[in-house]
């Protein structure tokens, strides 16, 4: 992340989603803007508290779906009616009726690829190494830990102050997360 700074941020662990949420709101009130929360399952209201907008994935997927449909229709029309027209069972070379199933399937297929691909891309995954992985606190995130992180990028950031503030908001443990030199 931000190159020279050896500190990634200050983190505090809470023991319930509720306390985490409360802390997040409080810190937002303090004017912290660069925060992130880490939870075992999605916690209601965090996005708002952390000032995150709604995911734009929907539009991507819709576009991909349209593309799939178009591709399917094009494929069936071109191969059947243009490239090698063959009379089959007295049916037309191309007809919408018998094109529906495959059109639908390809629509879904491409849309699904877009949904998953888009999600990974938006999250910058796969990313195996990350500063938080070197922090003890985070070990519990995928179990039952609820962690709030104030990133060092935050203009108001001050490691010591942040730790105290987090503790005061009920963090059971706090810690400064180091950037690790590659």
């Amino acid at each position, binding site marked *: 992340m931000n190159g020279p700074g050896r500190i990634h941020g200050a983190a505090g662990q809470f023991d319930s989603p509720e306390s985490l949420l409360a802390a997040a709101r409080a810190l937002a009130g303090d004017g912290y803007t660069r925060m992130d929360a880490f939870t075992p*399952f999605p916690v209601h209201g965090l996005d708002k508290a952390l000032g995150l907008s709604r995911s734009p994935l929907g539009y991507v997927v819709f576009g991909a779906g349209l593309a799939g449909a178009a591709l399917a229709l094009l494929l069936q029309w071109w*191969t059947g009616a243009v490239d090698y027209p063959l009379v089959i069972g007295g049916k037309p070379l191309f007809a919408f009726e018998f094109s529906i199933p495959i059109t639908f399937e390809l629509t*879904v297929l491409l849309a699904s690829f877009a949904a998953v691909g888009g*999600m990974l891309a938006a*999250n910058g995954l796969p990313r195996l190494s990350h500063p938080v992985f070197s922090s003890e606190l985070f070990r519990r995130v995928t179990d039952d830990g609820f962690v709030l992180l104030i990133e060092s990028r935050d203009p108001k950031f001050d490691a010591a102050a942040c730790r105290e503030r987090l503790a005061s908001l009920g963090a059971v443990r706090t810690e400064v997360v180091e950037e690790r030199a590659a």
Partner: protein
Amino acid sequence: MSGINGALILGKPALGDITAAVSGIVERKPPRAWYVAFGISAALTLVLGAMLAHLVTTGVGVWGNNQPVGWAWDITNFVFWIGIGHAGTLISAILFLLRQRWRTSINRAAEAMTLFAVMCAGIFPLFHVGRPWRAYWLLPFPNADLAMWPNFRSPLLWDVFAVSTYATVSALFWYVGLIPDLATLRDRASTRIRQVVYGVLSLGWRGSARHWRHYEMAYLLLAGLSTPLVISVHSIVSFDFAVSVIPGWHTTIFPPYFVAGAIFSGFAMVVTLMILARRVYRLENLVTMKHLDNMCKVMLATGMIVGYAYAVEFFTAFFSGNPYERFVFVNRAVGPYAWAVWIMFTCNVIVPQVFWLKRARNCIPLMFVVSILINVGMWFERFVIIVTSLHRDYLPSSWGYFRPTPVDILTFAGSIGLFLTLFLLFVRFLPMIAMAEVKGVVAGGKTHGEAKA
């Protein structure tokens, strides 16, 4: 809500307990039962391999198929497995959209089951063809040598697209669901190898709020996409028959009727497996009577839809005044295959009626037996539709009778072996219950269901 909650997860476990309970299964050495089961199913899988090798080197003639019965056990098994493959995605997607929280304890296993069932299903259309080494001609790839394309009018080609799409999307859906739990396993991993494997598989999931935001949207969209998909797949499978001209096949009610049947058999299979799993792995707290009770209700409902479909089929056949149609159904009821028809009817329509009784829905052994009977019945449903329609169609001169060969039987048994083998490997190495989701339910925190779509 809380009432359901109470019923859905017993003993108010702490989040940590859930993690421990589920991850434990993967981390601890499996019980003896697992090894026994795995040994048997693996052996059956080898039988499948042998049978297919024999088939490819000798020809479809090793099966009992003939004229007029060009399709028999091969396609019966295909439809049977595809049908089973419907419960998973249904539970994950449709129940998800309907905000049925009780899905969370069973959806993971159900999705896995879907995947493996579809794999088994895929084997049959691939190997039932006379020249499997030419099966790739069904794919529309630019062929500079022959300049030929597949025929998009053929329902069989629609099948190729439907089944492959279904397999792909289910796999994606399943995997996306797995990511957070894989991260859990990664973080609990004690050995380096586990750390690396689960680490790579979880793609570096951090559980950050930013992740969850896109993640949930993606999951919601997948659910939205899978719902019509799951319906389309069995509709298209039913087109294989409905689009033909053969009396007994050419029937307009097939798509809904097939979908209902698929859900029916799929749930039966989930019940069979979950009953075993919760017993072996002591998951009574996570997979509770409430879950089983709900699934019994679903089976009862779908079973009655299927029964209704049978009735309507008979009625339309009679009412249509089409002598060929009429004959087919009379022939089913009293013809040479009547025994199969009555097995089907008993298992699919009569047996599930016991679930009207609360006692029956609470009696696990009974549930287990019924769920298996239902799958027997559903296999026979497909057999009846395919074989009884074919063996006596338009010209009496060409009527015939189908008898399976040992190869037929062993191939089917083998496919069951493959299915179980894959499922056992799944419970051995992957979290069989969606921890993140269950935690969401326990903590009463926001579950996917409440994401504003």
